[in-house]
């Protein structure tokens, strides 16, 4: 990475600023482009309205109106921000219009699925590392299954469970678990195998049992791999939950917000749900990143 290229000099604040400046510039550019695109994409509608009303539009009128439409083709950033703020802070948390409530529905299913998928993935990885028959049987299929668009069957899983009378959190959690399972499995098998022959020989010469070998050598050395795959897994779990909320009938969750917004042409609602999902994903990945740094530092593995 480029971090090492930055010389120690103007202190922590200056360095943080030096790193943030390019990001802020790019973000600013994105916002500017977004505003221009909003004006450009909403302009035909505004012109059309003005032509019907026989009104003459000045340039400033045009811009003001394109940025304040009720149902714009592309809502302007401030409209999305307002929609997001209204969804998060403007509603009581129990209200069906509150993004906090919908976000919680999505988050709970995501976390449940993530927990199931992670535990199952680590468990199977332990089995694969210790049993050659399991390794040769399961691993090729686990790797091959990564290439199959599993997510596409998510709505089917929901409908099948609904036909058996199971609704709510569980079916979505199963999709999320299924999606987070494979990254964890593949990553952990790799991680448990990182100790090289020398280290394993050393454990052997200390007469370590297989359990001791696992707890004292394989598990600690697999942790960097664990966290890398956990980050992938939680993002996958969130996507799985959101897609699981898409089929008709789902009324709660960020995915349902997306779908109802698309049915009724409420673009601001779609964009706020999208940003709520993005914020949720970012927070979850960052939490795991923080956990990773904390654990690796405690173990002396921090880079």
């Amino acid at each position, binding site marked *: 990475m480029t971090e090492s290229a930055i010389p120690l000099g103007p202190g922590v604040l200056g360095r943080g600023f030096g790193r943030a400046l390019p990001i802020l510039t790019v973000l600013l550019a994105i916002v500017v482009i977004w505003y221009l695109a909003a004006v450009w994409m909403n302009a035909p509608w505004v012109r059309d309205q003005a032509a019907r009303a026989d009104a003459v539009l000045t340039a400033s009128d045009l811009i003001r109106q394109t940025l304040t439409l009720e149902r714009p083709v592309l809502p302007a950033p401030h409209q999305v921000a307002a929609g997001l703020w209204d969804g998060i802070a403007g509603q009581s948390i129990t209200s069906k219009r509150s993004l906090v409530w919908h976000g919680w529905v999505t988050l709970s299913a995501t976390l449940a699925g993530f927990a199931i998928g992670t535990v199952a993935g680590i468990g199977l990885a332990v089995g694969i590392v210790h049993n050659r028959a399991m390794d040769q049987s399961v691993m090729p299929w686990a790797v091959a299954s990564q*290439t199959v668009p599993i997510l596409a069957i998510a709505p089917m899983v929901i409908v099948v469970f609904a036909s058996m009378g199971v609704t709510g959190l569980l079916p979505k959690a199963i999709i999320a678990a299924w999606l987070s399972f494979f990254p964890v499995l593949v990553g952990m098998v790799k991680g448990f195998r990182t100790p090289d022959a020398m280290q394993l020989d050393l454990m052997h010469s200390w007469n370590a049992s297989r359990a001791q070998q696992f707890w004292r050598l394989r598990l600690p050395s697999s942790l960097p791999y664990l966290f890398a795959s956990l980050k992938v897994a939680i993002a996958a779990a969130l996507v799985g939950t959101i897609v699981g909320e898409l089929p008709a009938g789902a009324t709660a969750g960020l995915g349902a917000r997306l779908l109802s917004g698309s049915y009724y042409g409420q673009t601001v609602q779609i964009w706020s749900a999208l940003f709520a999902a993005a914020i949720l994903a970012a927070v979850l990945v960052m939490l795991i990143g923080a956990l990773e740094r904390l654990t690796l530092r405690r173990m002396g593995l921090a880079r």
Partner: protein
Amino acid sequence: MSALPVIAVWLGALALNTWLSRFDTRATRLAVALIFGATILILWEMIVRIYAIPPVILPAPSQIGASFAANTAILWTDFVQTIVKGALTAWLIGALAAVLTAIAIDRSPFLQRGLLPIGNFVAALPIVGIAPILVMWFGFDWQSKAAVVVVMVFFPILVNMVAGLAATDPMQRDLMATWAAPYWASLWKLRLPAAMPFLFNGLKITTTLALIGAIVAEFFGSPTKGMGFRISTAVGRLDLPLVWAEILVAAIAGSLFYGIVALIEKKVTFWHPSQRPQRG
């Protein structure tokens, strides 16, 4: 008592695989994997038949096969609509755009430092969520699906490609400089080849993403063909064997797509350590 044959098959296959896995040659490794797959299919078929599970919940593999054989025409039109038109063309466009963007921002460290964290961040976001917006903008036909796929594959490839272009070490770049190689020569002869393993890593990750994007985008509106459309309508009619046949098509297409990219990778990056034949 009806569980007995299921357990018998399971234990038999397990014993066979345990025995076979001790040899650990190429042939037995393949055999073990195939036996495991076949065992799962047989157990699935047996469980569905013995416990008389209704096809609405879980159709037997034989029913799925029959549905696949009976609906090849439908499956083919869906395949062309979703995978060839929606996923494949868009994957190519997205990959090309990402590679060109990576080369463009490569010359500016400022842009790199600004775009990379954002690209990494966006790559982790639930991008499928933009599907309803893009369906609204580009209409119901394959163009909107292609747009979703382009956005989905762009960022992972961009991030990988930028990392790949930075993968040459100073010694190699110095060597190019001592030969007075202009920017383009050093890009073409040194840095692009060095970036290939990274690029293919991104390309392989995004094959699955492309299929997912194309199928999921159809849930938000589509013409009366396409895999996502077929899955959602067949679920509505509780024609689960057809749904599973579509999933089978998606699985085959996904594996083929990945396999072809991996094959090209092997041809292009034959020099890379990970592609050398394993010995010992």
